[in-house]
């Protein structure tokens, strides 16, 4: 009886460990896939124009929720058009401090910090931004469903909802 119980417990324990390892390994793979999309983005972002507009078209969900630092909303079509027409350009951009959390094997929340120079309608501005993107695996394809931008805190941030 004791041996049977011990074997059953061991089986449950091993199954649990194996499942946890599988989940960890799957999440690591997802993080790599998201980071590859991000890395591939950088040269296109700096080139701007139709090349980057196509990136938006390919990876952003039609209903992607884009919120700019002032809280205003932007649609996928508006973002894509602003690049395509050359109205909005990224003259310089360094992105770092990437952090990714994976949920359920389908959804990834990616945050990062970006410092650079934007040009909007011919006027250039230095930017220091915090990005919060959410990616979802839909029908086998990674889609960005949320793209939030905030101005980075000027000093260490405390709890302030």
């Amino acid at each position, binding site marked *: 009886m004791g041996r049977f119980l011990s074997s059953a417990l061991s089986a449950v324990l091993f199954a649990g460990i194996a499942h946890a390892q599988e989940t960890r390994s799957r999440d690591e793979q997802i993080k790599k896939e998201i980071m590859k999309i991000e890395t591939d983005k950088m040269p296109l972002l700096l080139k701007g124009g139709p090349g980057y507009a196509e990136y938006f078209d390919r990876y*952003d*969900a*039609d*209903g992607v*929720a884009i*919120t700019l*630092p*002032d*809280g*205003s*909303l932007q649609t996928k079509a508006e973002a894509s058009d602003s690049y395509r027409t050359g109205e909005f350009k990224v003259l310089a951009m360094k992105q770092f401090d990437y952090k990714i*959390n994976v*949920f*359920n094997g*389908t*959804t990834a*929340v990616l*945050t990062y910090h970006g410092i650079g120079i934007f040009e909007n309608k011919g006027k250039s501005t230095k930017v220091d*931004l*915090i990005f*919060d993107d*959410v990616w*979802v*695996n*839909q*029908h*086998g*394809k990674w*889609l960005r*469903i*949320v793209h*939030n931008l*905030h*101005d*980075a*805190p000027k000093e*260490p*941030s*405390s*709890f*302030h*909802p």
Partner: protein
Amino acid sequence: MRVLLAILLTITSVGFAKAQEAGPSAEVVKEKIVQIENEKIPLILKSGEPYAKWLNDYMDDDLVIVQPDGGFTTKARSITAFRNQEFKVLTMKQDGHDVRVYANGTTAVVSYEGVGTFELNGKSFPVHQRFTDVWVKEKDGVWRRVSHNIHNLPASGAKQ
């Protein structure tokens, strides 16, 4: 002919993949998310332990919270702030919920606006904020918030 059919199928599936989920099951998800959001409001107004419990139940442990100032905070920090009364929501009206459903009805993005009054460390101030939350239906069947993003809007209360 087969090639044409294959191309058409590919184009259709690519288009479908980029859209949010639609149909009756997506509507059920939208209703569920709005229901959770609506149940939240009386608890927010109670603040303290009742809202701390709601946060504990409905926030994933790894929830990513971006505050209006661009700083990050955590589930644990938020719960503590409500539990020890450091932070209170004195008034709050939330509306304009727009829910989009993805990943076979297991992920939802909800955007809405809130107008109210907060109290932080004994000091009260008016707020007008835009929220973007992402909810995931986890393996145990419970919907949990995995991303909570807050932007300040102009204090007038007027929608942009």
